[in-house]
């Protein structure tokens, strides 16, 4: 059990031991870093490739079709075929585009997406860097994506791209605030930014989602996460029915693939971080720790894709309104609820904070009443 749990850690150690036989001692630190980095650099794109396959299969099944099933068994080689197609495609740069910006954006946008993986705890002892500011690092890196999306949209010199870019900036800035605030309760309770300590604080079945503030925080964090990676129902920056493809209208071939890769890797890492912060990360009985992490993360990824197969998208003003009028007050109140929960004794704190939460949700709902859509009843002419 222990060996399965620590399979990857032990594997790395074994590789290091083997290499230390013929490499000088001082290189071992670098070898260790390189092994971790290589693992992430390989893991990221492979995850992305199979997430595209997974999404297409899943949405296909939701829509009563098969999804990709021609290349390889169950279409498993489809991502590779797509990759070959993307690589061999002509790279088109619009004549009046800002060539420097047009080239830079897709290249740089992948970097933060890859770097985020370095603080995700994939299992017990399976984190590339245990940064003391883990969660902050993640928030900071995901916030940089905005600029590159905007650079891409401005560099393309296309009106649809520009509209998409403006939407994206407005949306990401708005959703960053509730996103940051929604993790604050976790930090408050754990007393550390480190992703590893957050997971360790949720040992046993003490996952944060089982507390009143945890439910609210989880929902807000997940929804803002979905908004941060521009997925349905918050996919306005690339809303294909309105502004063609938004900021990547003018991208083709490998550059487009890089955007796609960044989006999917972000979707995965956000799910991973949400699982870490609220669902207990790799904590869980019976199964090895990394299996638990992947189960939780893929469950959240599944929900994201399920959203995509179900929902229409919101309009710009409704999207902003949702962030500022619903999520922001809720997260602010949630910090207070978490503090209340922390400072009261154990049995009674759950009840009291739950009551406060319900009261606050009711108040927010009541305050937003005019914007809540209502069902209608229809009349008929010519009664039969």
């Amino acid at each position, binding site marked *: 059990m222990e060996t399965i749990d620590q399979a990857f850690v032990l594997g790395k150690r074994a590789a290091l031991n083997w290499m230390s036989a013929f490499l000088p001692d001082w290189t071992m630190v670098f070898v260790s870093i390189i092994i971790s980095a290589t693992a992430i650099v390989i893991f990221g794109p492979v995850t992305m490739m199979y997430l595209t396959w997974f999404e297409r299969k899943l949405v296909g099944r939701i829509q009563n079709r098969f999804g990709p099933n021609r290349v390889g068994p169950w279409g498993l080689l489809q991502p590779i075929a797509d990759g070959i197609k993307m690589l061999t495609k002509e790279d088109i740069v619009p004549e009046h585009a800002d060539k420097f910006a047009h080239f830079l954006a897709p290249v740089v946008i992948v970097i933060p997406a890859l770097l985020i993986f370095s603080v995700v705890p994939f299992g017990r002892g399976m984190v590339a860097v245990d940064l*003391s*500011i883990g969660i902050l*690092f993640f928030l*900071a890196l995901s*916030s940089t994506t905005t*600029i590159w999306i905007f650079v891409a949209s401005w560099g393309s010199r296309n009106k649809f791209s520009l509209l998409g870019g403006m939407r994206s900036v407005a949306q990401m800035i708005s959703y960053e605030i509730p996103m940051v605030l929604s993790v604050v309760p976790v930090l408050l309770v754990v007393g*550390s930014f480190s992703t590893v300590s957050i997971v360790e604080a949720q040992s046993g079945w003490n996952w944060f989602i089982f507390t009143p503030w945890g439910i609210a925080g989880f929902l807000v964090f997940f929804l803002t996460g979905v908004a941060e990676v521009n997925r349905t129902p918050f996919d306005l920056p690339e809303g294909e029915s309105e502004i063609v493809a938004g900021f990547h209208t003018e991208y083709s071939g490998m550059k487009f693939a890089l955007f796609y890769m960044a989006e999917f890797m972000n979707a995965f890492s956000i799910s991973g971080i949400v699982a870490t912060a609220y669902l207990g990360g790799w904590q869980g009985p019976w199964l090895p720790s990394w299996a638990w992490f992947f189960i939780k993360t893929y469950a959240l990824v599944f929900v994201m894709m399920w959203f995509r197969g179900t929902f229409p998208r919101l309009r710009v003003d409704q999207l902003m309104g949702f962030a500022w009028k619903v999520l922001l007050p809720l997260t602010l109140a949630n910090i207070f609820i978490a503090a209340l929960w922390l400072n009261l004794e154990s049995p009674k704190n759950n009840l009291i904070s739950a009551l406060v939460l319900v009261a606050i949700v009711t108040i927010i709902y009541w305050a937003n009443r005019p914007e809540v859509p209502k069902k209608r009843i229809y009349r008929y002419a010519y009664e039969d």
Partner: protein
Amino acid sequence: MDIFGLIGPASFYGFMAGILVLAVLTVTTRNLFHSAIFLAFTLIGVACIYFFLRAEFLGGVQILLYVGAIMTLVIFAIMLTAKMGDPSIPQSNRQRLPVFLALAALAFLLVPQIVKTSWKVVESLKTTSAVELGQALMSEFVLPFELISIVLLAALIGAIAIARSDQ
């Protein structure tokens, strides 16, 4: 083998040089938009220096605020600028000479000081944790902290007031 002693400073100076180059590019590029991109890279480079010096919290905040938020505002401001890509706009103006003289004077004052100072190198870097920062803000520096909050609140209200004024 004292390779660590070498790699550390080497990469540090490499970073520094890179930041300087990007900073120079920021002020010399004719295209305002490109200059904003270089500024973003410069700020990221500064954050890397923070990480290098174990000020991780500061580094994270630097990226979150400067790169994530302020750069976006800068880019928005650039969007409102007319003719931003026009290369015929001169990058320098008539006051070159006075500025150069003033800078020379400043350098004349600063360089001896820089040379005179004995730069104490602390071998073991002290990591400032976020907890300590928070405690400092809530005890020792509580007054400036609260003052800043009030200023920000005022700015927020002011922004809303300006945005609503045309209704």
